[in-house]
C-alpha cells in the first residue's frame, strides 16, 4: 500500500508551490490558436499563389515546344510552393493537436479540413489578386527567388530554343523592344499579318515563340500573354482583347 499524500502536501507547502494562474493557460491557448490561424492564413496565401500559377499554366504549341508536354509540365510545376503548402498543412495539424480537443479528430480528416480551408481561403486571396501580388513582390525583391520560383518567365526564357519572355517596352510598326526576363533588351520583329495584335502594347508581359535572327534580334512566330489569367489590375494584358487567346501568324 503506497502512502505519499503527506509527503506531497509537505513538499507543496515547504516549496511554496502554487497552482499556475489561469491567465497563463488562457494565454497559452490563445497563442496556440493564433499560431494555427496564422498557419492557415499562410496556407491560404500559398494556395493563392498555386492557383495563380496553375490557372496561368500554358504550354507552347506542340510544333514549337522544346520538350514533350509531360516534361514541360513537370518542369513548370511550382515545387517550392507545393512543398511549402505541405509544410504549412503539417504545422497546422501539429498546432491543432496542441489544442485541448486536438486529439478528438483523426489526423487524415484534419488534413482534409486544413487543406480545404487553405484552398477556400486561397481562392478568396486569388480573387483579390493577393497571390500574384506576393509572387510578383518576391520575384522583384528577392533575387534568389527567381532561381527557385519556377515562374514561366524564367523557365521559358530560352532564346536559343526559340522561347523569349519579358515586357514590351517600346513598339514600332513591325517590331517592338522587349526587356526579357533576364534583363536583356531584344528587338522582336513580327508580321503585321498576326491576327490579334492587341498584345503588342507597351507594358504587356508576353511570351514569344520564334527564333534568333541576329544579335539580340528575334523573329516572332507566335505571341501569347505571359499570364493569360491574371486578375485585372495586376498586370493583365492591355488592349482591346484580353485572355488566353492564342495569336498565330
Amino acid at each position, binding site marked *: 500500500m503506497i502512502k505519499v499524500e503527506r509527503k506531497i502536501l509537505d513538499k*507543496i507547502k515547504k516549496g511554496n508551490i502554487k497552482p*499556475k494562474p489561469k491567465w497563463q493557460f488562457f494565454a497559452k491557448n490563445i497563442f496556440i490558436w493564433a499560431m494555427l490561424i496564422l498557419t492557415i492564413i499562410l496556407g491560404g496565401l500559398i494556395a493563392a499563389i498555386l492557383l495563380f500559377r496553375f490557372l496561368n499554366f500554358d504550354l507552347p504549341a506542340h510544333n514549337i515546344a522544346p520538350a514533350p508536354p509531360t516534361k514541360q509540365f513537370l518542369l513548370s510545376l511550382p515545387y517550392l510552393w507545393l512543398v511549402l503548402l505541405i509544410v504549412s498543412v503539417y504545422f497546422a495539424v501539429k498546432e491543432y493537436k496542441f489544442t485541448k480537443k486536438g486529439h478528438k479528430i483523426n489526423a487524415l480528416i484534419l488534413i482534409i479540413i486544413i487543406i480545404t480551408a487553405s484552398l477556400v481561403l486561397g481562392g478568396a486571396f486569388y480573387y483579390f489578386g493577393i497571390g500574384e501580388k506576393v509572387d510578383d513582390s518576391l520575384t522583384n525583391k528577392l533575387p534568389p527567388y527567381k532561381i527557385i520560383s519556377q515562374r514561366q518567365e524564367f523557365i521559358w526564357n530560352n532564346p536559343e530554343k526559340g522561347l523569349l519572355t519579358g515586357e514590351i517596352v517600346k513598339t514600332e510598326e513591325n517590331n517592338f523592344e522587349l526587356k526579357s526576363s533576364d534583363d536583356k533588351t531584344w528587338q522582336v520583329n513580327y508580321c503585321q499579318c498576326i491576327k490579334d495584335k492587341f498584345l503588342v502594347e507597351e507594358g504587356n508581359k508576353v511570351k514569344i515563340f520564334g527564333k534568333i535572327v541576329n544579335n539580340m534580334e528575334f523573329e516572332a512566330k507566335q505571341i501569347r500573354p505571359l499570364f493569360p489569367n491574371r486578375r485585372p489590375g495586376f498586370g493583365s494584358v492591355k488592349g482591346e482583347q484580353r485572355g488566353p487567346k492564342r495569336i498565330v501568324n
Partner: protein
Amino acid sequence: MPHPRFYEKTDEELVKLTLKNEEYYLYIIKRYEERLARYIRRITNISEEELEDILQEIFIQAYKNLNDFDKNLKFSSWIYRIAHNKTIDNYRRRESRPKILEAKENEILLSLIEDNNHFQDEVERKLMAQSINEVLSQLKTNYREVLVLRFLEEKSYEEISDILRKPIGTVGTLINRAKKEFAKTANKMKINFEE
C-alpha cells in the same frame, strides 16, 4: 484539517476547494494514489522507490496545473494522462523492461480479452494466467497500455482517448490490434489459451 465529509465530494468539487485551500488536495491524492500506483505498476517495471518518486511528480504537476483542468474531461482522465506521460518519460529515460503483471491481474485481463467459454475451469485459467506475463512482456508499449487501460483499469474508449490523446477510432483500432498481437505473440511462444 477539513472534515471527513469532504471524501464524499466529487473530483471537480475537490479541485475547486483545493484552489482555495491546498489542504483539500490531500483528498484528491488519497483518492488517486493507489489507483495510479497500480496503473504505473501495470505498464512499467519500476521499484517501489521509483514509483513513489513518479507519484510525487504526478501529483505536484497536477497541482501546478489545476487551473488548466478541462471541465469537459473527467478528472480521472486528466490525472491518468499526466500519469501516463510521466510514466512514459520515466520509461524512456530508464529503458526499463516491460512489467510482468501480477498473476491475478492477468487472469482478469485474459478473461476479458478472450471469450470466457474458452476456459474449462478456474484451475486452468490460473495456470494460463501465468503465461500471460511472458506474452505481455513481448508486446509493444502502446499495445500493452491500451490492454491495461481497457481491461484492467476498465476505462471507456472515450476515457482512453482522453488519456492517450488519440481519436476514439484509433483507440478502437489499437485495442483490436493489441488483442490480435496478443494472440499472435502467444501463438509464436506456443502458449495456447484455448485449451
